[in-house]
């Protein structure tokens, strides 16, 4: 595994329980900042019960994800499970539902950022300040994502810890100062406040509080000992989230009870005044003195805004990765998944889905966003549950490193009870969201119909079958089938164009156990300039090669930009390979007038060769004098 211990740019690709848990909690834990208010608006005094019920559905869903992710440790979540269990069309439906989730995550997270920042600038807390703020944030992040960005695991870890600690502290203070079981009981007027239909909708909407479980699934390729670490991290996430999502609404509803107004309507400030910043509502109603409340307000405002900003960005990264994954499986037209000529990111898809996210937040109605999210998530989760049951049937003998408890035999195979109950729960929640919300029904089904139409037309147009998996053919390396390396370094010079063949070769070399690939993208700094001189264009170009490599190699590809002096590129590659203990170096063969050029960089690498060196030629520049010489290998 290529690990860059001394530097900070690349992160370990070997995730244990700690980092998987922090990533998942960071993602799931961010949802409470918007889910609490919108759920309370529906479920009123039964909000804690709604969260418990949706939490149990979440626990069953998490178990389903853990089983299937351990079985197929690859990115894609429900879309990937559906591909293995059913066919490409079902996989597309799951993926398109996920795309809706990512888009709405972008919209809802961005919409709530201004509300929490309103502790500093109150005009952001009202319309149109919140809508404008959210839209500007989406545009800014979309542009950043087009240039290429990556999540920082360290920042995620810090935020997850801060988030967890803050929520525990708020719960602790709340339990001591405001908890009132009497008030909690008085809050409930069964069948009236909330009405049964609102309570059911509250459960379905409450599921948005548990968004983000796909995070672990998407990190599965990087997990160390997936059979142990994934179930454990999923388990810890479920326990932490279930406990906090029970206690936070209990504290909130003790502090902001359900009251009846003059017109006879029941409401809680949690679902009205503080619907758009519920955690700030808790802070303001904890009964603390003025100064501590003010300090806590500013702290929670900043923390929530940062967490939601990261969640917005994670949504856009999700759009980007999902577009690539769907493109790889020929589920989306080329036009939609077209990559930027310079930054090598799927900019058309980012722009389109960012625009859709902005459109959905323009009305400024969080309940619409919440029910739309619930629509997409429940559909995806239901497909995941059904896929796991189907896999138990059609691949009964396949190795399952982890299975949830409580299985029973029926119809000739072992059925997972968690998937059955979880699937029923998510399916019923999906129906409830549609039945009780005509607008969500129309827009949600319209979204799915649009996606399926695009898929069918595209596949027909390409002469591809609708239900079979057809992958984009990546350039196949030659002559390396029998060799596998624990870590591979790919070196790019700055005047060298990005070569998919080089990355494909590295992926093949490191394929069998999902080993690491590190891209060493160099930019040459002239000797008349200091080594740290600002060279934004060159830097962006070097960074874009790393991003494009990630599009081909997935999450196990890391990379960093290295500044070198003229003529030092070969030494830089050799030093880097030694530093990260790479077992193979992949470099490109340059050509001049169709003739291979064994330039100084290549000669230096071959001369130094700290490990095996694989030289890859670009087929489009293949020289007539070396027919078929797509790859040469120099042993140590």
């Amino acid at each position: 595994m290529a690990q860059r211990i001394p530097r900070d740019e690349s992160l370990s690709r070997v995730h244990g329980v700690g980092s998987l848990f922090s990533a998942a909690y960071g993602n799931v834990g961010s949802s409470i900042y918007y889910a609490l208010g919108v759920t309370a608006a529906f479920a009123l005094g039964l909000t804690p019960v709604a969260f418990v019920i949706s939490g149990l559905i979440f626990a069953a869903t998490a178990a389903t994800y853990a089983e299937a992710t351990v079985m197929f440790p690859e990115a894609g979540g429900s879309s990937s499970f559906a591909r293995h269990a059913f066919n490409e069309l079902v996989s597309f439906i799951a993926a398109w539902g996920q795309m809706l989730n990512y888009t709405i995550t972008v919209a809802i997270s961005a919409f709530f950022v201004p509300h929490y920042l309103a502790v500093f600038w109150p005009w952001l807390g009202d319309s149109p300040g919140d809508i404008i703020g959210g839209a500007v944030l989406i545009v800014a992040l979309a542009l950043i994502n087009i240039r290429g960005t990556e999540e920082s695991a360290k920042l995620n870890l810090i935020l997850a810890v801060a988030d967890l600690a803050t929520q525990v502290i708020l719960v602790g203070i709340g339990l001591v100062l405001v908890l009132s079981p009497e008030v909690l009981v008085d809050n409930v007027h069964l069948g009236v406040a909330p009405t049964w239909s609102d309570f059911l909708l509250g459960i379905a909407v409450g599921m948005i509080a548990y968004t983000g479980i796909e995070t672990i699934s998407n990190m599965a390729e990087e997990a160390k000992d997936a059979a142990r670490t994934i179930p454990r991290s999923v388990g810890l996430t479920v326990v932490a989230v279930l406990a906090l999502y029970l206690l936070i609404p209990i504290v909130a509803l003790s502090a902001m009870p359900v009251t009846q107004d003059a017109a006879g309507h029941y409401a809680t400030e949690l679902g009205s005044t503080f619907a758009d910043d519920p955690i700030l509502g808790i802070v303001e109603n904890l009964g603390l003195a003025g100064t501590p409340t003010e300090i806590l307000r500013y702290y929670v405002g900043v923390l929530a805004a940062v967490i939601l900003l990261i969640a917005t960005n994670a949504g856009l990264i999700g759009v980007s990765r999902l577009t690539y994954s769907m493109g790889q499986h020929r589920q989306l037209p080329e036009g939609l998944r077209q990559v930027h000529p310079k930054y090598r990111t799927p900019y058309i898809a980012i722009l389109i889905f960012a625009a859709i996210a902005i459109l959905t937040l323009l009305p400024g109605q969080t309940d619409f966003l919440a029910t739309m999210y619930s629509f997409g998530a429940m559909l995806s989760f239901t497909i995941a549950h059904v896929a796991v049951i189907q896999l138990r049937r059609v691949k009964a003998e396949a190795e399952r490193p982890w299975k949830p408890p409580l299985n029973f035999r029926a119809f000739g195979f072992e059925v997972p009870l968690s998937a059955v109950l979880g699937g029923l729960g998510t399916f019923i929640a999906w129906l409830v969201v549609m039945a009780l919300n005509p607008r969500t029904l129309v827009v949600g089904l319209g979204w799915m119909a649009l996606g399926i139409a695009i898929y069918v037309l595209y596949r027909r147009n390409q002469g591809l079958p609708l239900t079979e998996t057809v992958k984009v053919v990546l350039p196949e390396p030659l002559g390396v089938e029998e060799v596998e390396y624990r870590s591979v370094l790919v070196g790019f010079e700055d005047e060298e164009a990005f070569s998919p063949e080089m990355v494909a070769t590295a992926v093949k070399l490191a394929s069998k156990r999902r080993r690491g690939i590190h891209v060493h993208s160099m930019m040459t700094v002239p000797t008349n300039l200091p080594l740290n001189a600002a060279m934004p264009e060159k830097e962006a170009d070097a960074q874009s090669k790393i991003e494009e490599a990630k599009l081909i190699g997935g999450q196990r590809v890391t990379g960093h930009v290295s500044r070198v002096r003229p003529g030092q590129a070969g030494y830089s590659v050799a030093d880097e390979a030694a530093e990260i203990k790479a077992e193979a170096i992949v470099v490109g063969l340059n050509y001049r007038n169709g003739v291979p050029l064994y330039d100084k960089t290549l000669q230096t690498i071959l001369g130094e060769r700290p490990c095996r060196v694989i030289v890859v030629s670009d087929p489009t520049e293949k020289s007539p004098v070396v027919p078929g010489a797509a790859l040469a290998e120099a042993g140590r």
Partner: protein
Amino acid sequence: MSSDRFYHGAVRAFSLAFLAIGIVVLVVTLANGGGPASVGFLLGIAFILVGAGRLWIGTRSGG
């Protein structure tokens, strides 16, 4: 920190947190005059049972 140590540490931390939360909820409920059939009392007992139970399982299995 190894994955195993993190996991077992986290399980212990969660168990203790559950125990502490249960005790706080129980004390607050009783201080406010809640009886054995009140929501707070039952919730407190439930948290204490879950926390203590998981600690006990961890002690038995050495985890």
